[in-house]
């Protein structure tokens, strides 16, 4: 009986060792995978950071203005082209102050020469 018990204990120990080794290996592999994932996340974050920086560079006002002028024929608007909603006439109301009065681009007009000091 004692022999059977001894054998059982030794076998149990053996299985425990194997099980422990198995768990340990799985943990190590999981750690390894976690490191890989973390490394990939860090790499992706770095890539996103670079892409954001590149986007900022290509979408800078400087480049956008150059492209808008060269490709779309756009130009700066003058202040007389801008207004607020509360200044627009209501539907059906007197269209004044719009009144269809042609007004030259005032911002582009050059005032009469003076001393300029």
């Amino acid at each position, binding site marked *: 009986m004692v022999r059977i018990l001894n054998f059982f204990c030794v076998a149990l120990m053996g299985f425990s060792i194997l099980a422990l080794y198995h768990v340990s290996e799985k943990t190590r592999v999981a750690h390894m995978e976690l490191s890989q994932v973390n490394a990939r996340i860090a790499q992706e974050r770095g890539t996103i950071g670079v892409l954001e920086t590149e986007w900022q560079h290509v979408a800078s006002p400087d480049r956008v203005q150059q492209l808008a002028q060269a490709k779309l024929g756009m130009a700066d608007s003058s*202040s007389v082209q801008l207004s*607020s909603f509360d200044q627009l006439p209501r539907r059906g109301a007197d269209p004044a*102050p719009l009144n269809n009065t042609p007004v030259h681009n005032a911002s582009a007009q050059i005032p009469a020469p003076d001393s*300029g000091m």
Partner: protein
Amino acid sequence: MNEAPTVFQRRIIIGAVLCVAAFALVGIRLVHVTLLKSLDGVRAATAVIARADLTDRNGELLARDLPVKDLYARPQVFWDKGEAARALAGATGADARRLLSGFNNAKHPYVLVARQITPDTEAKVMHLGLPGLEFEPGGKRYYPDGRNAAQVLGVTDPDNNGVSGLELGLQDKIHAAAGGKVATSIDMRVQYILAHEVEQARKTFSAHAAGGVVMNVNTGEVLGMVSLPNFDPNQRRLDAGDSAKNIMAQDVYELGSVFKIFSFALALEDRTLRSLDEVFNIGQVYKIGKHSIHEAEHMPATLPARDILAQSSNIGTLQIALRSGPTRQREFLGHMGLLKPIRTDLPETARPLYPFSNWGQIETATIGFGQGISVSPLSFVAAAASVVNGGRRITPTFLKQTATDLRGEQVLKPQTSEQMRDLLRYVVTDGSGKRADVPGYDVGGKTGSAQVPGPHGRYIPHALRTSFYGVFPVHNPRYVVFVLLDQPHGTKETGGFALAGWTAAPTVGRVIQRIAPLLDVPNILPPTKLASTSPSNP
């Protein structure tokens, strides 16, 4: 014959089995470590971001650390050190002789080949197939908008420490927020427009240097600051004609007639000037002791006070300044913060120059119209903003603020500030600042055309430093725009004139016209129909 094993034999067998099992485990592990080692070779990337991003007030990126690598070599493992030095120099751009000298120096096991190499360069180096190379992860500061905000943002050194501009001034905040963001007060749109218009003006008028500032008069937030010539912060060298100096903060200038703002503000504050309709005798020369002061331009024999500012009469202004007297003038300018270096988030600052111990009548007269005292443009803008913002002190800041009113102590009566706003509007509607006007935005302002001192203390003939201080909308001021041109030249379009009204004023007008809609400043003009869109337009 087949006797059963004894107890000892069985124990020996069990022990042997255990030993075999143990060796088997060691063997398995050995196979794993040797054959599958590559799986363990992946390390989590080292955090290389040591400085926080700098962003503008709307979250647009201004500066960021990008991942780069420093390349080191262990020359002991090279077969041919000369060949390795040449190959690495070719791939990285490093000096081959420096590398060879380092490789032959037995004292150092590691030699720095190149710093902050890009992924492209790293690929070239890897393609060489040299042994003994190690890449140390690091970060390189990158500025997506390049030159536009070079001086105000500043740069870092190769170790990623700030050395100038906000990179140095906000260093503690940038380190504390590493991996995050530090929001500045800069608005990239305003910064770009200011840089673009100032650059255009510098080219048009062939000015030596130029600069500009846009500031919120109620919070002191600087939305844009430009200094030309500038430099490319993404290169670690200055090209020909470049300058890293921020002339708006680091230099002091005699600003000329824009300084008349303070003479009028003081006179109105102290009621030494009771009415803006008071008439003064002008003439062309005014004598103080042995000194004769001339007008820069022909002036009428008499002018009311408001036209003295509008036409920028030196003789009229000095009479108003002399009423205040040297002591009061000095006290007032000191109270406005013009007699000491201004402290902001920028480390660059400059000590003003003024007659320290000999501030008499002639000094009072010349300082009254902006000669004989030199201040930094940023100091001037801060003081001049206090004149129009209800008379309260304002300190420029380069950090985004959440509060909408950060005005400090009262330095002028609100009534004086209101009178000054009216006066500045009058300068633009009826005086020398007409070219700064923008329909719908009620610009107020003052021109300044100062003589430029030469190397021997005498003024350079015909050389001017022109500036314009603009505020909009003048009756409910929100922003000031200041532009300075150093020694501009007149053009055919200006009839050869290089005065501020022809050079700096229109530049400020164009800046205001472009930034006002972006900054949500209401346009008070009724909507109009452009002639160019009208059917009646030929």
